[in-house]
């Protein structure tokens, strides 16, 4: 069981170290990049099966008993997140293997992605607040370097904003961890769950909760802390954005889910309305921002913000159905959003320009890509029988049961606007005929004063031949199929989410796994 709990972050880390040692060979690096992601997926599935059978499991690093040591603990929520991260990671790794040029590979692209995956998996599996900080930082530093890798001017601009805001958030997280230790004398989640309800003064506990809300809110891109996301997710080359979009904000949402259900349930009168307001404004502002943008990836970046609002709704309502809806929504969103970013990367590669006004006519030239986009976009918008519909339905139902009518109205209105935005993307990129100025240029000769990364993508897609185009398309198709499967197989998936939600709200099994049987 220890091996199974440690493997999801150990395997990508070993792959990263091997990739660093062999950083001269491009082929080895690509293999290790895919291997690390596949390792995450396989170990995640094994972990999920084990947790589903035996309940939450825990192990202590370095042999120090809880609550003194660092606990690695997995309950259903952690295992689900690891599995979906594995899927996203594998799709992104396959896409990267096809599109990342030799220069960025030499600078260490694959070790960095593997470190990112290790940080993500570690954050999902840790049972200690400070260890969470460490894994967050591993993930963040890897993402900082990935964002700036390549050194184009837009990337540098996005990177400065991303790094600065995330650094400030990290200091707040660290301050909260220090204050919690000073208040209760422990950093272990399970132990804190027992000690925080009795801690005096409760004002300090609420203050720490707000610090953590800000720190994780920045990471999760909640309102009013999300502005780094639209400023930076559209600047790096497509493969980096694909990896980021599916993983980074969800780690923040997971941290919020974990801390506000396990640790800070002492003042629901303050925290629940706060979360309801935050999620509603995030949803609305995100989708309004998306409607205003004129570039594929900028629209999608704002949609990430909007969808994060849906996920936070679960914490605002705090019923088992709402949390199950939030968990299902996270899984659906990771698959759909990554597929959309994969499509965005492929679309940018075809025209050499990123502005939507320059795109067009892709429905005839790349029908399979159009199909993948259609499925992912409809899933995001919430059309049955795709996964997005089930997720939104569950959330609406939970909202109605909790009598939060204003929020439900916001959910439905934002869904409508999401559909509008997706239709606009479809029109601009796929349905309308290509602009006249680009006629006769074809995908290779596109004038590209744009970032050379885009030019490189066109070069590889032209020079690499059929298999590269297929490698760009296949991950998106796989994720879209995953979305369909999640929608059609929503019964068992929703059951799993309900069990995960119940484990969140009733953490006795978790506490027993970490601290041992109660005396």
């Amino acid at each position, binding site marked *: 069981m220890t091996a199974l709990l440690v493997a999801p972050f150990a395997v990508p880390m070993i792959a990263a170290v091997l990739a660093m040692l062999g950083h001269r060979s491009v082929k080895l690096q690509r293999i290790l990049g895919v291997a690390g992601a596949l390792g995450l997926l396989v170990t995640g599935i094994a972990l999920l099966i084990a947790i589903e059978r035996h309940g939450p499991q825990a192990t202590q690093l370095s042999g120090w008993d809880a609550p003194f040591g660092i606990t690695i603990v997995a309950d259903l929520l952690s295992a689900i997140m690891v599995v979906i991260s594995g899927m996203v990671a594998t799709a992104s790794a396959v896409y990267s293997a096809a599109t990342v040029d030799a220069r960025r590979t030499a600078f260490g692209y694959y070790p960095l992605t593997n470190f990112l995956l290790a940080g993500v998996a570690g954050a999902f599996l840790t049972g200690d607040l400070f260890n969470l900080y460490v894994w967050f930082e591993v993930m963040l*530093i890897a993402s900082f370097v990935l964002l700036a890798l390549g*050194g184009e001017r837009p990337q540098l601009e996005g990177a400065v904003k991303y790094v600065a805001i995330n650094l400030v958030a990290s200091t707040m997280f660290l301050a909260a961890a220090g204050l919690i*230790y000073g208040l209760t004398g422990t950093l272990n989640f399970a132990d804190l769950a027992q000690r925080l309800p009795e801690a005096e003064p409760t004002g300090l506990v609420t203050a720490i909760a707000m610090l953590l809300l800000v720190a994780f809110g920045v990471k999760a891109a909640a309102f009013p802390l999300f502005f780094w996301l639209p400023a930076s997710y559209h600047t790096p080359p497509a493969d980096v954005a694909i990896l980021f979009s599916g993983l980074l904000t969800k780690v923040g949402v997971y941290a919020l889910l974990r801390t506000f259900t396990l640790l800070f349930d002492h003042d629901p009168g303050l925290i629940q309305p706060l979360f309801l307001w935050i999620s509603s404004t995030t949803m609305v502002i995100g989708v309004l921002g998306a409607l205003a943008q004129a570039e594929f990836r900028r629209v999608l970046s704002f949609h990430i913000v909007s969808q994060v609002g849906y996920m936070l709704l679960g914490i605002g309502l705090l019923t088992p159905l709402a949390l199950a809806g939030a968990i299902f929504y996270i899984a659906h969103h990771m698959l759909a959003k990554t597929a959309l970013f994969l499509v965005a990367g492929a679309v940018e590669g075809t025209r050499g320009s990123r*502005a939507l006004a320059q795109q067009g006519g892709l429905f005839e030239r790349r029908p399979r890509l159009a199909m993948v986009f259609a499925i992912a976009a409809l899933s995001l918008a919430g059309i049955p029988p795709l996964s997005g519909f089930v997720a939104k339905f569950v959330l609406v139902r939970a909202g109605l049961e909790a009598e939060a009518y204003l929020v439900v109205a916001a959910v439905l209105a934002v869904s409508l606007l999401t559909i509008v935005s997706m239709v606009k993307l479809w029109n601009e990129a796929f349905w309308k005929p290509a602009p006249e100025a680009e006629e006769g240029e074809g995908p290779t000769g596109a004038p590209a004063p744009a970032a050379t990364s885009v030019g490189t993508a066109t070069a590889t897609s032209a020079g690499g031949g059929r298999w590269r185009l297929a490698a760009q398309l296949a991950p998106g198709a796989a994720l879209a199929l995953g979305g369909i499967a999640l929608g059609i197989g929503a019964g068992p998936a929703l059951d799993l989410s309900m069990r995960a939600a119940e484990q969140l709200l009733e953490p006795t099994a978790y506490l027993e796994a970490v601290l041992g049987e109660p005396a």
Partner: protein
Amino acid sequence: MEAMLPLVVGVLYAAGFYLVLRPTLGQLIVGLALLTNATNLLIFTAAGLSRDGAPLIAADSETVSGAVADPVPQALVLTAIVIGFGVLAFFIALAYRVYRTMDSDALNDLNSTDRLDIGGLDAGGEA
């Protein structure tokens, strides 16, 4: 001492936040450094200040004897310093790169990727 350290932490945080909000790259870096230092000092202060011995067990006994300092906040601060060092080192390298690319250190000039391209600017307005 117990009254002075929180004051120092407060002053460092205030200075750090003030500098982070300034329009120059150099001031941003110094502000971030002050923030990380303030947080490290906060962890150290919040965990309790005492003049006790080092938390080491003598060679012939099983437990510590006498009052010893808490080793956990020391470990926390050490880890935080290392992580802060790593991130700041990277950020300084990034800032240097930005400075060389843009030839100025005004942060308000970093907005070419934020402009909305209405009207279909070619290459997404990044050129």
